[in-house]
């Protein structure tokens, strides 16, 4: 008999325990309140920073905690157990805004913009989407014009996770011509004159995370905040998408997993026609289908993650994994609410939130349709 090949070893399990303890102590008791309030306390960033949770997956040289992709997955999975994907998305806005700084930035930029964020002292967000440019990343209109040692930025960024209180925005701007080659990344600090923020946007789900529109009006950004060279932004955005899509796949799997667990529990407790509904074949088969889908999706995502961790190109596979995971979580959260009946429509029950929170997963980080474009290009050629 050969030994079982595992993705998670002892250190991963210990990370899991640490994050689980953190969730039990610092998040779970307050999570319903934060959901209703529409944000979690800023202090949570500091606490997660102190516990080294924010730094998982980032180099120790810049205040990170080190670790491989499966340490990160273990942490995200346990964070999702808090029951609010909004909290996870809010804490996780650094996961999409810090990598471009690490891959394109100078030593000075990394020290200045990465350390305080991983410590939890500053909040970092990513600004790519605009009112008129989402999936069409190359269509970004926010303009940055070089004037001496500054860029003057004009335009706006839309649906920015952690946007309402971010201290710094890793922001895609147009410094050159119309094509994707004209896009660059600037780190724009929120106290820069000409930077302003909308009210928190009211959303279908992810209530505990703040989302905002950000405006730049003759915003003077020091030229030293440019990441890499002018024109490197598009590459940075695309590279960044891999990690984001993996993370969203993991979030989808956990959303489905928790919806399944809630449904199993509820179906044992809830009685109809004189017996628990778990005794009816219609419920049992539904749960069997849900469990099968969750299992398949989780294994698929782990496999793709293992290949990414080993440095293999997985652009096609991660697009497939994200779509598959989101399809599974769409189906499973739908069925979970169905099993709960009227109760599933009530905020009192977790599946109601899971159902709402799930909806963004097949939109953010590249829509389902864009994923299919990527996959089909790989299959058919351009």
């Amino acid at each position, binding site marked *: 008999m050969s030994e079982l090949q595992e993705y998670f070893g*002892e250190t991963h399990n210990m990370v899991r325990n*640490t994050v689980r303890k953190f969730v039990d102590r610092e998040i779970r008791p307050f999570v319903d309140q934060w959901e209703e309030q529409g944000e979690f306390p800023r202090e949570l960033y500091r606490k997660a920073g102190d516990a*080294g949770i924010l730094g998982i997956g980032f180099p120790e040289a810049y205040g990170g905690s080190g670790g491989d992709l499966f340490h990160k997955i273990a942490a995200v999975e346990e964070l999702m157990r808090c029951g609010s994907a909004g909290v996870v998305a809010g804490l996780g806005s650094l996961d999409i805004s810090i990598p471009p700084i690490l891959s394109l930035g100078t030593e000075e930029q990394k020290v200045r913009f990465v350390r305080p964020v991983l410590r939890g002292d500053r909040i970092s967000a990513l600004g790519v989407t605009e009112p008129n440019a989402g999936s069409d990343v190359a269509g970004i209109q926010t303009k940055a014009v070089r004037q001496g040692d500054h860029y003057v930025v004009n335009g706006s960024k839309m649906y920015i996770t952690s946007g309402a209180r971010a201290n710094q925005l890793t922001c895609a701007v147009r410094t050159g011509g119309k094509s994707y080659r004209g896009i660059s990344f600037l780190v724009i600090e929120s106290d820069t004159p000409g930077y302003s923020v909308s009210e928190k946007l009211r959303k279908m789900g992810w209530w505990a995370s703040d989302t905002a529109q950000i405006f730049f009006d003759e915003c003077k950004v020091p030229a030293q905040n440019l990441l890499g060279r002018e024109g490197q932004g598009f590459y940075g955005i695309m590279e960044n998408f891999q990690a984001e899509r993996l993370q969203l796949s993991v979030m989808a799997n956990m959303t489905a997993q928790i919806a399944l667990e809630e449904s199993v529990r509820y179906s044992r407790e809830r009685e109809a026609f004189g017996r628990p509904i778990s005794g009816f074949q219609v419920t049992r088969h539904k749960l069997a289908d849900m469990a099968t889908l969750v299992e398949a999706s989780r294994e698929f995502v782990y496999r793709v993650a293992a290949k990414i961790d080993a440095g293999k190109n997985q652009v096609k596979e991660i697009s497939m994994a994200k779509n598959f995971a989101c399809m599974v979580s769409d189906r499973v959260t739908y069925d979970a609410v169905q099993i709960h009946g009227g109760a599933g429509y009530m905020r009192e029950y977790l599946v109601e939130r899971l159902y709402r929170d799930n909806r963004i997963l097949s939109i953010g980080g590249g829509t389902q349709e864009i994923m299919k474009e990527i996959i089909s290009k790989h299959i058919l050629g351009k």
Partner: protein
Amino acid sequence: MNIVVCIKQVPDTETQIKIASDNKSIVTDDIKWVMNPYDEFGVEEALRLKEKFGGEVTVVGLGPKRVTESLRTALAMGADKAVLITDDALEGSDSLAVAKALAAAIKDLEYDLIFTGQRGVDDDMGVAGASLAELLGIPHVALAVKVEVAEDGKSVKVHRPVEGQTLVIESGLPVLITAQKGLNEPRYASLPGIMKAKKKPLDEKSLSDLGLDSAQFGQEGRKVKVLELTPPPERAAGKIVEGETPQEKAAELARLLHEEAKVI
């Protein structure tokens, strides 16, 4: 200042405990095991004292191999080395036997302070710490919520809550202190700490390594025997007080409290 912390591994406090078919033990199949929370306060306190006074923190655990994970967690928090007492003959030992094995492992270590949890959250005996101090011939101060070691590192003041007051006990060193909730807020084992812990020494000792006779341990060696485990009674269904008016309902409630519940 050298400090020893004893660690017990217990079922996670959220585990649904099921009683095994022998009615004397619990089903351990699906249990998630964690470091006893009271021991965790001991680890944290030891680490804080080490940060102030220097020295080493040694964690000592007892039980099957899985206890390694709790010891590694303590190492990841910052302890320097670990000892695991593991031996099939230990299975089923009572608190006194556990204290004997711990004493044998600790007596040759250099220590100024020993921390144990005030009790394990599984059996709730609260005996191992005091027994260990007795076997080592050192003083024992229970239920610490504050530990102040003198600047010269030669004595300690321990605060213990008693009926809304605080009792402050002073002792010379070495001393064994049992940790109570409120002593501190334990730190998290961070990933860099976890990676470092992999390289820290973890010694395994069997009963014979410690010069102990295995006949004194396990079920046979128990001074205290478990006769039976029973689950807490199931909560009965609630009762809705009937009545047309608030007055009628109140009168009915008063009658029920008097006649049925017999509380008024």
